[in-house]
């Protein structure tokens, strides 16, 4: 088993050779001794392959080193949220309002030529003890500035939505690479026994711009696909069909088990067979657990109000219910939750943050949906102590120009410098890393790539981004390709 590529079941370890981690969650084990036992702490640079029991693909697996975070929430604002109108305050932009950007005469970006610099459409003010300047576009999130760790110097490789969304979620601008959640659940499994290890929560308005690619496992085994569901739309095929009674269902499953166990007795060496029997048992437990996690009847009225679950705006209420679902999933040990704000392009700037033409009227619509529920989620995670071991990353595919597009009242795409923020386990609170130039056009200080971001997130989860790899078609593939450095400055 020295070379796992040879395993005929696609890198899933033969059960016989599986080091029995049994049912023990990591909590019950001294992690360092476990790691030492496997020799993983020994210096090395080769790939570290998770040992996966085919019958329990979601079982918790040890990280590469002591993690700072046990689970992760990625909040993805699709459409590209303007950093200059939200979190990246640029006094010079205000000062030079409606003048040409110096040195950028006739600058052509994604949709064409740019006009003059335009100051933020919402006023910025100092927030919290840190005095961080954020805008009135997202006031509730602004109030949490002391909890957040801003990276203002993020840069991406593409200035068009599809490839840029792919890069933020999968590390590559091309189609066909596993999402970060797939990498993490492949490496670490889950601490939840009965829920999928990786859940994607699409916005109530629809799937994100690159649709299911946001949570695809690509060449990783299908077990590590994100399972999409939200407060309005349960897991596909989860529920027992209405036409089948509970008794009939349970008798049928018992009969399946009877058949499969007989078959296993005839073919006793087949690990896939025993894995399948186990998968039917997990499916049954998942039916109960997924129904339970989606049932918010036990939540207090105060909690529901905090999130805005009863808001008359149905998109806001839907997103609020999704935020609540995210907390409930994290609470139950789901390893990776990806929460979407904004959907696919259903007309420019209608379904998401893509503000090319009339940003002043489009953004308040999206901000109203995002702000309160998202801030409530952070507060709730903190109040319940979950933020101590949950890592939160608030991301978008790229930023927007400090100029308006020529002949329009909106901002074009800008991957040269934009803002994302982190919060929770292992990251500095009330901290700002990196900066864009005086207008917010280009990252100039501590320039950070998406590879660096991914390396940092994996690091916080106890994973070495250079050693978490999967051999596919001639290459040891990584989330960070051949790039990436952990951004030490943001680590608490």
């Amino acid at each position: 088993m020295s070379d796992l590529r040879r395993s005929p079941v696609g890198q899933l370890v033969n059960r016989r050779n599986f080091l029995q981690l049994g049912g023990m969650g990591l909590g019950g084990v001294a992690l360092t001794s476990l790691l030492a036992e496997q020799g993983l702490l020994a210096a090395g640079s080769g790939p570290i392959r998770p040992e996966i029991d085919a019958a329990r693909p979601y079982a918790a697996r040890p990280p590469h080193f002591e993690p700072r975070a046990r689970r992760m929430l990625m909040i993805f604002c699709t459409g590209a949220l303007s950093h200059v109108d939200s979190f990246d305050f640029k006094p010079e932009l205000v000062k030079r309002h409606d003048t040409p950007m110096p040195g950028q005469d006739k600058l052509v970006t994604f949709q064409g030529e740019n006009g003059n610099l335009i100051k933020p459409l919402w006023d910025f003010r100092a927030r919290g003890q840190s005095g961080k300047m954020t805008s009135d576009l997202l006031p509730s999130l602004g109030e949490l500035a002391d909890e957040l760790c801003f990276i203002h110097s993020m840069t991406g490789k593409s200035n068009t939505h599809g490839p840029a969304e792919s890069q933020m979620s999968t590390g590559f601008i091309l189609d066909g690479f596993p999402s970060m959640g797939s990498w993490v659940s492949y490496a670490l499994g889950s601490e939840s026994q009965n829920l999928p290890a990786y859940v994607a929560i699409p916005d109530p308005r629809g799937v994100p711009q690159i649709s299911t690619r946001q949570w695809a496992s690509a060449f990783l085994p299908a077990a590590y696909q994100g399972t999409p569901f939200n407060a309005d739309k349960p897991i596909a095929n989860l529920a027992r069909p209405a036409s089948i009674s509970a008794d009939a269902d349970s008798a049928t499953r018992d009969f399946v088990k009877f058949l499969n166990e007989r078959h296993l007795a005839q073919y006793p060496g087949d690990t896939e067979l025993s894995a399948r029997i186990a998968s039917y048992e997990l499916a049954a437990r998942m039916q109960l657990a997924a129904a339970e996690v989606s049932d918010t009847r036990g939540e207090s009225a105060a909690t529901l109000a905090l999130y805005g679950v009863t808001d008359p705006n149905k998109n806001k209420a839907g997103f609020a219910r999704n935020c609540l679902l995210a907390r409930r999933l994290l609470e139950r040990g789901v390893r990776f939750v990806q929460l979407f704000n904004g959907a696919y392009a259903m007309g420019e700037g209608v379904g998401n943050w893509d503000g090319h033409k009339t940003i002043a009227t489009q953004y308040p619509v999206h901000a109203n949906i995002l702000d309160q529920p998202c801030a409530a989620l952070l507060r709730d995670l903190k109040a319940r102590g979950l933020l101590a071991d949950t890592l939160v990353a608030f991301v978008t595919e790229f930023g927007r120009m400090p100029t308006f597009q020529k002949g329009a009242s909106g901002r074009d795409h800008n991957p040269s410098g934009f803002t994302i923020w982190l919060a929770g386990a292992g990251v500095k609170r009330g901290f700002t890393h990196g900066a864009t130039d005086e207008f917010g056009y280009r990252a100039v200080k501590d320039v950070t790539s998406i590879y660096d971001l991914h390396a940092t997130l994996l690091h916080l989860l106890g994973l070495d981004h250079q050693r978490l790899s999967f051999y596919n078609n001639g290459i040891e593939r990584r989330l960070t390709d051949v790039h990436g450095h952990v951004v030490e400055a943001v680590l608490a």
Partner: protein
Amino acid sequence: MDKSKLPPAALRPVDFRKDIKPLFESKCYSCHGPDKQKGQLRLDRKADALKGGDSHAPDIVLGKSADSPLIHFVAGLVPDMQMPPKGGPLTSEQIGLLRAWIDQGAQWPDDGSSVSAKHWAWEPVKRPTVPTIDNRQAASGNPVDRFLLAKLAEQKLSFSAPADARTLIRRLYFTTIGLPPSPEEVATFEREFRTGNRQLAIGKLVEKLLASPHFGERWARHWLDVVRFAESNGYETNGTRKNAWPYRDWVIRAFNNDLPYDRFILEQLAGDAFGVDEATGFIVGGPTDIVKSPDPVLTANQRAEDLNDFAATTASAFLGLTLHCARCHDHKFDPIAMKDYYSVVACFAGVRHGERAVKPPNFAELQAKADGLRAQLATLTKQMERFEPVAQTGTNGPGRRPPVTRGLNLDRFPAVTAKFLRFSITATTQLEPCIDELEAFTAGAASRNVALASAGATATASSTLPGNAIHKLAHVNDGQYGNDRSWISNERGKGWVQIEFAKAETIDRVQWSRDRDNVPRYNDRLATRYRIEVSPDGMAWQTVATSDDREPFGGKANGGITYSAEGMAPAEAKRLEELLAARKKWEAELVSVTTFPMVYAGKFGQTAETFLMHRGDPMQPREKIGPGVLASFAPKLSVPLEATDSERRLALAKWLGAPENPLTARVIVNRLWHYHFGIGLVDTPSDFGLNGGRPSHPELLDWLASELIASGWRLKHIHQLILTSAAFQQSSVENQLSNRPDSRPMALDSSNRFLWHFPARRLDAEPLRDTMLAVSGKLDRAMGGPGFDLFEANSNYVKVYNSRADFGPTEFRRMVYQSKPRTELDNTFGAFDCPDAGQVAPKRSRSTTPLQALNLLNSPFALQQAGFFAERVATDAGKSHEAQTKRAFQLAFLREPTRDELAASTKLVKAYGLPALCRALFNANEFLSVF
């Protein structure tokens, strides 16, 4: 050069790893390492370092440090070539070490970089001798078995016992055609197996299956994985390619007809040269980003990604090489230089994504006919000119002339001699005016368009909208129509464009349009008020036509050119009628002889120049690269720089299919092995390089490769050898006493690389769905044509894929006929490790998940088919629960139930009905796996 100034060589033995490599790393690699190779010198890999750079190679002269340019440079003996240029020179000690290392023979442990390094896959295919095996299991004499048994014997292992007839026929059906046999076919085979010669019975069955049209359907699905084929564009818009399916059908036909594999390659790369246009769907089967932008960087990157996909997929599919690794730097493991990468890219420099008309067999004949019709129509149009209304200047319409249109507009006027023509717009439908072409024709016979830039005319304008590559002043008289080759002014609702002819000309008509294209596209920016003036000198102007006498735009009348005999003699009116009738007829004929079915098989055209892109960045072109093949691999082939698009693709295809090519035959026989046994002899089917797996049975691989070539590249011959082998027929139940994990075979070879039992596995998604349909009795075996859709219809610009919840007979065809979108998996079978065609998938992962269980238990498709299955069983078996159970087991498992199975089943049927049993059988391991 004064060599006496060199520091002396160190006197001790030098160790490369300890003494030299760290020196190179700290001082040289930033310019001569993996990322940069200034002067083409690369010092991090043995082969390159010893070869040397462009100008001074070899830079290291073995045993002669004083003659080695490398030493001259670091010692500063060559003016302006002090190395390293930054960070200070080397110390005398360091130079002394380098000298000693070179003098001692430049010992460098092999790092696998050497182009001449031995690697099994670069060696020519040699036909090995078939081992002689004195073993009952090799009795059939099948060479495949002899090679395998020889290897097993080394481990003192042997094949497992043969599988029973039922297991074997089921296995043969699934791996060969991807469908189960009927209970009746099983019964017949069992009888022949029992009573006759087993090998004969198996041989007959294999022959029958390889001749089945379903064989091509199953194996096409494998090939479509390998070449990342899907029927949508990918990226966020992911729109459907309605005409991509003919490629899928071509692959099915190719496998069914046993198209020789060298020809299979040739047609996929250059089928347009052989009347099989759809085959080149291979080249453009991958994703492409259709979101276009005026940003030149984005545009260049998009093109570079397309070309990378064409070249990389070709190398991956046919050579099992990771060519794309040489896009930004020389390949780190395999002998593929960056230059090789760009040479192959240059072979595709004339290919673009898109649809092309499929030429019918009598294309030349039709083309001649079309040319004749065009000439007739040209003459006719000339004859009709006198019926075109002449523009009336100075009158106040609404006149006799039709309104303006997006397409062709004509302004005819009395002949006038002029050197200048000005077209001034004063109103548009909206925004700045756009004109795609402005033409001025000379009066009389042999009329010419004298406004063309190519006729020496020059265009000027009041203004031009900046920042758009497709809207330029030069486009107004470039002879090309359509919005993408047009001029737009930079003034709302107005603007003028002026043409100066090469010399004074007598003209009598002007033609112009906004978007003269076959497909209706842009109606905005249309000039609705304008005037046309001419001038002999550019000073004094005379108006010859205006929009004043046209019908108003947006009214009832259609735009375009009208003809009228008003005010002419009755004979003339009759003549016009005849002309119009003739035109209508000929135009219809022209459409019919020039309209061909479209296929998404790429657009072929002029080859753009190819440059080596520094670090793979399309904004950093370096030297020009001509078309070519991989220089380190046989056979040697050079492709002339001036080769056309078609010649380039043909050359590449012929090189790939040359019998001397060490990879092509090995790679394809290994793929066949991979799909039959679930794992290849080389377990990395698209990477035969140094980073890939080593063959478990190198001699067998080479024997099969040579056998393929010797058979005239017939793949069915290889299939037949594999399927009739004893190896394929052994039981999947592990050997004799080997069921226990601690058995000898398990201890020696737990992953079964030596094939001491048949490897059982779950069915892939497609045969699983097909089998449910076959068992339910609903499978529609119709072949070919447009695919069915597993997603709800959707016309959003960014296509949204929602899995359908109800299915009818249209969706009951085999899954290979699904119109397969890229990166979107349906919510029932997508969980079964279906590749999403975002990247090539030479090997599927295989996982077992609770979502698979939920999908098979609860999905609308599974329930519906369980219902149909139950109906079929009831029809076949009548009302008795026992008979029903027996029939259901026969159909699903191809066997009778055992006594306790019968009891349990009958109980279930009695309590909850037959559909409950059928739903359960679809979830049984025995149904889901090949074993």
